[in-house]
């Protein structure tokens, strides 16, 4: 248990140094210390996995995880919000790569499309709508004070240190799984697939996919519909309600003049000699 606390403490010390808006050299040293703490955490974690469990893709997974963590740290330290959002995209792409390595191909691409493609674009729109970066007297774009100076970094990192150490200790106690659990789940999924193919005449096994080896999309789709149909419906309701909520929240009440109201009703304006730009300003 203690090695996790040690590694988490090193990572936390690095994070505090990175968070302080001080000299660049100090922040670089903090980044190095934080990365060392993260590497220690990874080392302790990998010690848990059997030596035979490491595969050829392990170094690649480690590199991707490091990129993801660096992106996340930049999200919480970058003084300019738009760049923080772009670094979040980097973290999302790293997570998608980890998903690919865990054989969750559908989710990997769905994550990139939904997160990087849709949610982050919404964030960028709102950031750019709501936020004009201030310029100093020679026209350089600076950052707002509330983006540059963190709030209570010591308390926050202290909390984070305990959370990280506790999570690490939990990872240590992940119980080893019975080795036959995986095949049984695959067999169940295959059974579902065969039944579905019998029920749906149009559904064929994918090109080049043996029928006894269902691919990830088939398995996830069947599981989604067969095991969680009510949740699927509820997800639809959540999305609908979120859409209504967003429309209601962001609607702006516009006071219309008499003329504009007549025009909106399709009755034509009463005052016809106003130039177009003056009327639009009402």
């Amino acid at each position: 248990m203690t090695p996790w606390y040690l590694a988490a403490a090193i990572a936390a010390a690095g994070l505090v140094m990175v968070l302080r808006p001080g000299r660049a050299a100090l922040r670089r040293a903090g980044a190095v210390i934080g990365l060392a703490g993260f590497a220690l955490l990874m080392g302790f974690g990998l010690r848990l996995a059997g030596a035979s469990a490491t595969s050829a893709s392990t170094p690649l997974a480690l590199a991707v995880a490091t990129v993801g963590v660096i992106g996340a740290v930049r999200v919480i330290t970058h003084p300019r919000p738009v760049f923080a959002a772009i670094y979040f995209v980097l973290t999302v792409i790293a997570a998608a790569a980890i998903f690919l390595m865990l054989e969750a191909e559908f989710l990997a691409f769905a994550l990139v499309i939904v997160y990087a493609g849709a949610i982050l674009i919404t964030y960028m729109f709102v950031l750019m709508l709501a936020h004009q970066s201030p310029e100093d007297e020679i026209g350089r774009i600076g950052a707002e004070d509330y983006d540059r100076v963190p709030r209570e970094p010591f308390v926050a990192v202290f909390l984070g240190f305990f959370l990280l150490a506790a999570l690490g200790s939990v990872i240590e106690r992940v119980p080893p799984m019975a080795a036959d659990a995986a095949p049984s789940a695959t067999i169940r999924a295959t059974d579902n697939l065969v039944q579905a193919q019998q029920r749906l005449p149009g559904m064929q096994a994918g090109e080049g996919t043996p029928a006894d080896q269902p691919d990830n999309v088939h398995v996830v789709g069947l599981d989604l519909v067969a095991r969680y149909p009510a949740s699927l419906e509820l997800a639809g309701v959540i999305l609908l309600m979120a859409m209504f909520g967003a429309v209601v929240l962001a609607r702006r009440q516009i006071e219309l003049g008499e003329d504009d109201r007549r025009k909106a009703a399709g009755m034509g304006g009463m005052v016809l000699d106003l130039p177009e730009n003056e009327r639009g300003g009402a």
Partner: protein
Amino acid sequence: MSELAQPSAGVVIALVLSAALFTIGLVGFLVRRNMILMFLCTELMLQAAAIAFIAFGKMRGDVGGQVFVIFILTVAAAEAALALGLVVLLYRRRETLSAEAWQELHE
């Protein structure tokens, strides 16, 4: 122990990454003073939860973990829409994104 499989290296890496991302998201939520970036940090924590789900699903050979991540994506999208709508509303009132502009709410 011979019939028990240890978690593979990929699963452990994903779990440690998940713990680190969740912690960074929590620290960021407390440290950031820009309302939009505070919500971005909650997205970071959701991301960490999704990675943990996928890792445990892989470890147990159960696709239920992946299905749950689909629901996480749904809730994240709904949350982003509502949170950003609220932030736009708050920004129009105070003309700033700083969370401290609303400090009197907790007094």
